[in-house]
């Protein structure tokens, strides 16, 4: 069991290293191959209309004219040990896990990201709770009442949910529920610690909108998995014992059905935490995703790089958690004693 945990942890770290290397390759090596000169790259980092002197300084500061190996060494060093950036007489310290320094806002990237993280966390985790509970409940009901009106209706709605993009459902919800009928307040994000009720009111619509998309997918998955499980021999065994139908479904059939769902849940939460770009943009939530979009538009490359790395970390971590949960959910995974 300990072996399993250590192996998974090792694999997670290795994956992070690989993702970091690939990110470096995309941001530093690929442009080079495409024929972008060090000055051209410096222009991408500095922002709008830089002077030639500023460009020279940036090339120097980021070591853009250095060989790739040196650049990679610096990149990793900055990431692990932090870096000092000097502007004339001014020196800015970018502390240990330094995701880079934005020359547009003149500040290190990580604190900026951490500022916006609570918004994204609230959005992602809240939505996940809704979509898991909603999706699984609807899926189970649909499977048990297969072919009924409820089943057909639910699967119809689920199909719509899977098909409609967030900027459609989200804008629709905003237009009618907020602006037309005034059911929800027009408000900026309020931290949970400040005013939980207001937080809930603001977040509710984004949650539901984001959850709708995923819940639909989960409902379909749950239904399919449940129908398959209900055909298993061990379900027949459970019935042959004289168990009530409720126990057969919720004890015996639900657990195997949820096993694959836990896997996709890990991926989905990781993705959402990496930036639910559409939802945050539509509902003007100033989260990580919205920040990423702003930086892309303003060509603030260090921020884009930072968001990419942060997203990768989330996905790796969420998958790691799922991997560690797996033996709890399914004892057959506990092979290594």
């Amino acid at each position, binding site marked *: 069991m300990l072996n399993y945990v250590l192996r998974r942890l090792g694999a997670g770290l290795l994956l992070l290293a690989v993702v970091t290397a690939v990110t470096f390759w995309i941001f530093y090596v690929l442009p080079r191959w495409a024929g972008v000169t060090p000055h051209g790259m410096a222009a991408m980092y500095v922002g709008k209309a830089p002077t030639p002197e500023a460009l020279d300084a940036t090339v120097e500061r980021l070591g853009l004219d250095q060989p790739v190996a040196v650049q990679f060494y610096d990149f990793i060093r900055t990431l692990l040990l932090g870096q000092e950036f000097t502007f004339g007489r001014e020196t800015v310290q970018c502390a240990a896990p330094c995701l880079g320094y934005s020359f547009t806002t003149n500040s290190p990237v990580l604190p900026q990201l951490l500022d916006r993280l609570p918004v994204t966390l609230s959005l992602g985790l809240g939505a996940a709770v809704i979509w898991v509970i909603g999706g699984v409940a609807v899926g189970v009901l649909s499977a048990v009442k297969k072919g009924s009106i409820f089943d057909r209706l639910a699967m119809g709605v689920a199909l719509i949910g899977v098909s409609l993009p967030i900027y459609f459902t989200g804008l629709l919800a905003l237009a009618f529920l907020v602006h037309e009928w005034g059911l929800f307040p027009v408000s900026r994000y309020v931290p949970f610690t400040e005013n939980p009720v207001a937080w809930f009111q603001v977040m509710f619509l984004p949650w539901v909108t984001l959850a709708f998309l995923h819940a639909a997918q989960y409902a379909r998955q749950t239904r399919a998995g449940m129908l398959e499980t209900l055909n298993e021999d061990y379900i027949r065994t459970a019935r042959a014992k004289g*168990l009530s139908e409720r126990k057969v479904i919720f004890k015996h059939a639900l657990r195997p059905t949820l096993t694959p769902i836990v896997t996709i849940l890990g991926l989905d939460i990781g993705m959402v935490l990496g930036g639910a770009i559409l939802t945050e943009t539509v509902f003007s939530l100033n989260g990580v995703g919205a920040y990423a979009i702003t930086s892309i538009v303003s060509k603030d490359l260090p921020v884009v790089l930072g968001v990419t790395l942060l997203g990768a970390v989330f996905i790796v971590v969420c998958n790691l958690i799922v991997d560690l949960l797996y033996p709890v959910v399914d004892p057959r995974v506990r092979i290594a004693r």
Partner: protein
Amino acid sequence: MASTGPASAAPDAVVRVDDLRVTFPTMDGDVHAVKGLSFEVPAGGALGIVGESGSGKSVTSLALMGLHRGSRAEITGSIEVAGQDVVTASDRKLRSMRGNDIAMVFQDPMQSLHPQYTIGNQLVEAYLVHHPKAGKAAARKRAVEALDRVGIPEPAKRINSYPHEFSGGMRQRVVIAMGLMCDPKVLLADEPTTALDVTVQARILDLLDELRRELNMALILVSHDLAVVAGSVDEVVVMRHGQAVERGDVRTVLSSPEHPYTQALLAAVPRVEMSRAERRAQDRADRVEREKREGTVTKPGDFEAFTPASTEDEPLLRVRDVAQRFRVRGGTWGRATDFWAVKGVSFDLFKGETLGVVGESGSGKSTLSRMVMRLLEPTEGTVEFEGRDITHMPERGLRPLRRDVQMVFQNPYSSLNPRLTIGESIGTALRVQGERDGKKIRSQVQELLERVGLEPNHYNRFPHAFSGGQRQRIAIARALILKPKLIICDEPVSALDVSTQDQVLRLLSELQDDFGLTYIFVAHDLAVVRQVSDRVAVMRKGEIVEMGDSDSVYENPQSDYTRQLLTAAPVLDPDEARDLRAERVAKRAADAA
């Protein structure tokens, strides 16, 4: 002893089925799965229900448990279990009967336990549902007792294990223990040993017999195999197309069957005491007679094509000390450990002979046949085919070998591509080997289809349109199309009904006569292997424990393991079966002492 005559309604009957009919409405009209079945089982008695696939025996056993509820099945007639009618009982009443009055043991122990709960959890639950006031500790104690009762070693410890930590036979014991939790009056076992090895099968059947006697429980044993029920039941019902064609005392039915179907079924059961020579003589005589009747071609002289095996020639296949190692992952830090699936196996195979390879699951028989086919590269040893060393030959050099050595697999349902017509399936091999002329391929395939007992116009049909036996004929045709020198049959008949199995064995024997084929016949069924093999190799844990000409291996086995296999093999004679059981029980008691 149980009642002998049918209709005599025993007053102490614990199961009474009267005019049971089960109908499934489908798009193509109603399917009558069971049509007017009646029987009863006295308390402590044992009834065998025997039939081939589609006879309605499993539908009947599910009906006894009321497990058709919630499906579209329409059930009429009456099923009385412990005085309560199952057909009309309320859902609640039915649930209180399941497991309590009548418990069930299912076919596949690998699938019938929940993989995500410990067996203790599943056993305790079976008790608590009928004794909600008993409390967990009491239920657990009972579970340990039940596990002990069915012969699980260290039950108090093993109760916390998950199903995947048990072997197939042990899992079936757990399922039986689960059935015993509430002291049911009836134990219903639907093909309880079909998925198990011969020796394990014998143990499970012995256990069921013992439990029935000691706990005075009625036993209903459902099987496709007459030999499985012969030694364990008092009365037998033979089913066909949803009806009981014959019913009566097991000794009477098996020794002097009245219905032609029962007679045919009995004749088709391979008998371990019948030798290869007898069987072949009989097959040839039957063939001559059939062809005379039908006025078809083969002259008796054509059988001369078969030349008896001679050890003086160069062998077709020479296998020397082959071994196959697999790496098994999962040690510390994923370190691999070695597992030798086959070790130190040697034999010669001569043209025109059949080598039978018998062994239980995990004996390495399939791995061996894969190495001979060079689907696996032997880790050690050499394989020579027609004097050429093919042990480490690269894939390119193996091309001619692929033509000369063909394989027939066990499962005819999954070994044919469902998206190819059978004509394409069979013809592909010719195309791969370089034949371009489509017409020629077609005519060759059609000729062969006729030879294996199918119609030429089946060429364009898809596999799903064929029964299991027909599919196995298709698989044989596919193996034959390249005129191979050696055919490896890996459990070719174990997925088939007895009567179909008999037909396929006949076909293989006729083909050997006509084309002078050489077979390696891999199977777990001792009787089948004896009837088709000139020589037999008995395998265990990757090694050949005994090898020799089949008559001497069967009549005068040298190895302990072979003897054990032979006493475990089910036999048709009810008295002999009981004697063998007594012998096994005595041996086990002696071993334990």
